[in-house]
């Protein structure tokens, strides 16, 4: 047995070990680089293909309220508003639930059947295909909301920003919840114990020690959820009402950038029309990027000891 690790043998393999190390390192590096190149490539091709529209409309594309394929006037504002409204509303609705799940699993019930069921179920939520969410929303959620709208006294479309936000909020819960659970579980027990030793109640420990300590991680989860909400297409398309007018309120039908691309891309024959749709994609890309950068900045600012 000891013959396996004689100095001679180790020396003789040394070069090839080093060689393999180099190959491995290069492969990893190139793969990582490839992703960066790919992203840049997507960005560049979006710019190239949207050039006719960029050239024709300039900044007015961003603030234009009219999307009229017949006249060839294109403005993205209604979709921009629709996208941001549904995403942030969904985030606001989902946050209490996902935080509660994260705190419960991460702090109160780390082991046992209840937490494992909760864990599984929240993760399962992320695995359900979005078309299923869309169908469920269209056939179950929308009629309920229609009844609610009749009660409130607004026009009972059923579909609209509110319905889309509700279904989105369910879809993004797992992202914030799982991330939150992980970081809450990682809070060092000595600082929690220190707080307990000073006479803090459990609720005080969670709100004053655990959450502040974990906030940058929770923020990262929120960011992930927001990214998902911004880009979600199928489920939103089915319940947002697909109206290209600037939404007037919480319950009005609207449209998102992802939806309008999915809806109109196949039949867009005119060059300007097609490039306007690509520019919508470009703006969605940029919005996601900007929100990510702001998010990263916030994470950095609020990181404990960072």
């Amino acid at each position, binding site marked *: 047995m000891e013959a396996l690790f004689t100095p001679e043998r180790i020396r003789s393999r040394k070069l090839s070990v080093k060689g393999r190390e180099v190959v491995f390192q290069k492969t990893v590096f190139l793969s990582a680089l490839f992703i960066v190149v790919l992203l840049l490539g997507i960005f560049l091709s979006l710019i190239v293909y949207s050039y006719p529209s960029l050239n024709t409309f300039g900044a007015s594309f961003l603030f234009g309220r*009219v*999307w*009229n*394929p*017949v*006249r060839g006037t294109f403005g993205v504002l209604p979709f921009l508003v629709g996208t941001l409204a549904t995403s942030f509303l969904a985030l606001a609705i989902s946050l209490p639930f996902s935080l509660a799940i994260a705190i419960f699993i991460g702090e109160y019930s780390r082991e046992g059947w209840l937490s494992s069921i909760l864990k599984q179920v929240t993760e399962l939520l992320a695995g359900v295909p979005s078309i299923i969410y869309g169908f469920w929303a*269209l*056939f179950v959620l*929308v*009629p309920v909301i*229609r009844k609610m709208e009749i009660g409130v006294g607004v*026009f*009972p*479309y*059923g*579909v*609209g920003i509110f319905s889309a936000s509700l279904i989105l909020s369910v879809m993004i819960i797992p992202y914030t919840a799982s991330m939150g659970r992980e970081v809450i579980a990682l809070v060092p027990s000595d600082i929690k114990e220190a707080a307990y030793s000073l006479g803090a109640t459990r609720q005080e420990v969670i709100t004053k020690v655990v959450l502040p300590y974990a906030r940058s991680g929770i923020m990262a989860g929120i960011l992930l959820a927001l990214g998902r909400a911004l880009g979600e297409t199928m489920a939103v*398309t*089915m319940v947002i*009402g*697909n*109206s*290209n*007018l600037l939404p007037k309120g919480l319950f009005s*039908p609207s*449209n998102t950038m992802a*939806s309008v691309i*999915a*809806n*109109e891309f*196949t*039949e*867009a*024959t005119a060059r300007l029309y097609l490039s306007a749709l690509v520019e919508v994609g470009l703006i969605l890309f940029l919005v996601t990027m900007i929100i990510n950068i702001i998010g990263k900045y916030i994470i950095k600012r609020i990181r404990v000891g960072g």
Partner: protein
Amino acid sequence: MLLTCFFLLLCLFTCPATRAGSMELIGAGATFPYPLYSKLFYVYWQQTGTKINYQAIGSGGGQRQLVNMTVDFGCSDAFMSDEALRTAPAEILHVPTCLGAVAVTYNLPGNPQLRFTPDIIADIFLGKVARWNEPRIIAANPGQNLPDQDIAVVHRSEGSGTTFVFTDYLRKVSDAWEKRVGRGKAVNWPVGLGSKGNPGVAGVIKYFPGAIGYVELGYALLNDMPVALIRNKAGRFVRPDPKTTSIAADIPLPEDTRVTLTDTDAPLGYPISSFTWLLVFKDQAYRGRSEAKGKALTGALWWMIHEGQQYAEPLHYAPLSPEARKKAENIIRAMSYYGSPIHP
């Protein structure tokens, strides 16, 4: 014995290949005639051995793919614009294959048989008529009990030939529509909500009391949806069905058949009807295509506008009118290979 067996086997394998040269044609385009084309191409394959592979990717895609010469024929619910034809690499012909219609459908208590005048439809979709018991709707529907309820307009969310035909009709019957919206596969709808595809629109209307929308006629008939009678140019309220749709094309047509049939002059025709076309290059000698391929294509087209027409009505499509068929025949006869006609 063994040799005979071998020969027989050889024949078995080579026979289907020699039959019509195991020709295969590829087409792409509109989703609207897809069920009919599936049936037609299957029957044609059984009868002649010519395989026709059709991909329903949408009219726009069909036009693009033909212009890029990646398919043997395209298919479109809307004829190509003059500009699109001018920029195409070679002359493109439109061969009408059948007709479709757009039905106006609704959801009211008891689903009474409604009658609409053109101005009512236009004003409903413009948002000017917003309640079911407006005097104009009552006047067009004497004896019907119309509820005091808001009208919810439902339209297609994605670009579609159905929308093109419907808005083309509205454009013809209403100046206000022409000024404010116009026609297109996707338009800037003044009111209402959008839903994807015929099933999407039908689904929303079905669960939404007070809703009104438009779907492709075949879809409405297949699903027993209430459809409105619409007053045509001659002043008759016409029920949409394959017969009244065919009649809509029984009017003098231009030689290239690139015409919209909406608001037809035909006295008994349904006013929201339209052709669907196969698009082909006039001269089949492009990209090194064989003459046999061009012949196979003209043969298939000829069959579609003659024997193939019998399959239209059972599938809720409207067959070509005699006038339309005559024009289609002329167009197919005009097809050529290096300038010489290829249709026998």
